[in-house]
């Protein structure tokens, strides 16, 4: 069974002359329990796919299936969708409400999903993401970047989703903190049997996290490969080739 199935997905912004085609004809499948990576440079449409899936980008055509259930294009997502698909945003400094404490953020989410045992669940969520209850009543400005991202992960885990969308979850963080967050995500995936769909411009991070990788360029998928192919540089498309080389660092020989 595939957790996510995209078939001929087009996503666009604006209408008429202003229309920008952000994603064109993207098709790929994410198997249940798998960790899947979308890589590409800015403007390649990789984040837009996540936004179309979650309903944040309203104009799309094609087919999206979540757990073999097809999404209805005309309607908004229902609560059952949000209970199974959740997202972690790129910038932990922008994804937390500046005037709400950790406690307020999590209780609001738990309330929205109709949980009764909010107190116990908040404690458990904070333990799950390695923060502990000492952080429960802090405001975002009292947290470091890594701690904020842990709160954002706790928020995404609150409805007990089976699919987690990760939009550059560590690109705003220091490398040492990145290691902690990536480890946490790996642990959570093993513990809760999550499916990951991860978007990143950092091929090394994607290689570490994902089993399957799709390379995107200007809204189109140029290549799909397994992580072992990528590590061995067994790629066919010239763009993926150049992206890989550029990612692996700066060589003075380029001069």
């Amino acid at each position, binding site marked *: 069974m595939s957790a996510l199935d995209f078939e001929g997905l087009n996503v666009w912004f604006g209408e008429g002359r202003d229309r920008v085609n952000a994603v064109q004809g993207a098709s790929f499948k994410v198997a249940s329990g798998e960790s899947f990576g979308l890589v590409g440079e800015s403007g390649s449409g990789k984040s837009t796919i996540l936004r179309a899936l979650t309903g944040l980008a309203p104009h799309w055509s094609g087919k999206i299936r979540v757990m073999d259930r097809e999404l209805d294009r005309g309607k908004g997502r229902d609560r059952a969708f949000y209970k199974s698909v959740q997202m972690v945003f790129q910038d932990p400094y922008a994804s937390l409400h500046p005037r709400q404490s950790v406690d307020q953020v999590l209780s609001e989410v738990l309330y929205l999903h109709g949980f009764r045992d909010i107190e116990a669940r908040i404690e458990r969520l904070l333990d799950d993401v390695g923060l502990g209850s000492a952080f429960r009543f802090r405001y975002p400005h009292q947290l470091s970047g890594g701690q904020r991202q842990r709160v954002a992960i706790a928020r995404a885990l609150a409805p007990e989703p089976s699919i987690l969308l990760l939009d550059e979850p560590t690109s705003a963080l*220091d490398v040492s903190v990145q290691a902690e967050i990536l*480890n946490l995500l790996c642990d959570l995936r093993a513990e809760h049997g999550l499916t990951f769909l991860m978007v990143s411009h950092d091929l090394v991070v994607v290689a570490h996290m994902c089993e399957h990788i799709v390379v995107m360029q200007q809204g189109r998928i140029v290549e799909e490969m397994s*992580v072992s192919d990528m590590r061995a540089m067994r790629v066919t498309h010239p763009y993926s080739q150049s992206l890989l080389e550029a990612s692996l660092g700066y060589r003075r020989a380029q001069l």
Partner: protein
Amino acid sequence: MTDLLDVKDLWVRFPTRKGRFDAVRGVSFRLGRERLGIVGESGSGKSMTGRAILRLIRSPGQVEASHIRLDGENLLDKTEAEMRQVRGQRISMVMQDPKFSLNPVMSIGEQLTEAYRLHARGGRAEARRRAVEMLEAVAIRDPERVMRAYPHEMSGGMGQRIMIAMMLIPDPELLIADEPTSALDVSVRGQVLQIMDRLVQDRGMGLIFISHDLNLVAQFCDRVMIMYAGRVVETCEAHKLHEAQHPYTRGLLNSLPRFDAPQNRLEVLRRDPAWAAAPVKGPVA
């Protein structure tokens, strides 16, 4: 040979409600005509160090040092007016995000020629010729068109290259680049680095390259200073960064995921409070 830049015992201090906060604590280094990388995590004081050299720390922050010598002249003795001369003509700074550094309502050409005329008092035609030349120097293909364009019409990589062009017009002796490539895509990053690289080699300019990216600094710079909690914990040759001794540097390097081989878990940096107090290791630059 005198050093291009000689910083001794630099402190940057901020008063806070809970007492004084020292963002930079006793940093000393020397710089020749080379590429010096300053790496560290956010809050390590690396950006503050760069700004302090230009005396760009805003009040109530304070800069103190034994000396900050540029070609033997102590920058701390200069008046604010003299510092403005230094900032424009002798030391330039490139920031992370070009969007905030370019004036949105002036065309690129106007900004470039104005930058030139401020420093060289040359004629309009001369300024224009020089601006086009600079755009060519930073590998912009169609400089005439770019001269007429406005900053919002530029992509991130173009904007950053234009910033560099602007900073180079007065022909500075020292360029301080604060995370100049973090906002850029990898393919553009390579171009921007190449440009800076060539400038150091062709013009004999000194470069301070502030970054959080250890691998990049190891590949790009000649020498690296690693900062932690406002202090320099280690200085080493860039190509020997992977043999670094200090546990903090090692921890940072080990926490990076590897591309060549899969790992189950990444190593997590265990911070030792002693690092913040420990003296500098390795040859003092």
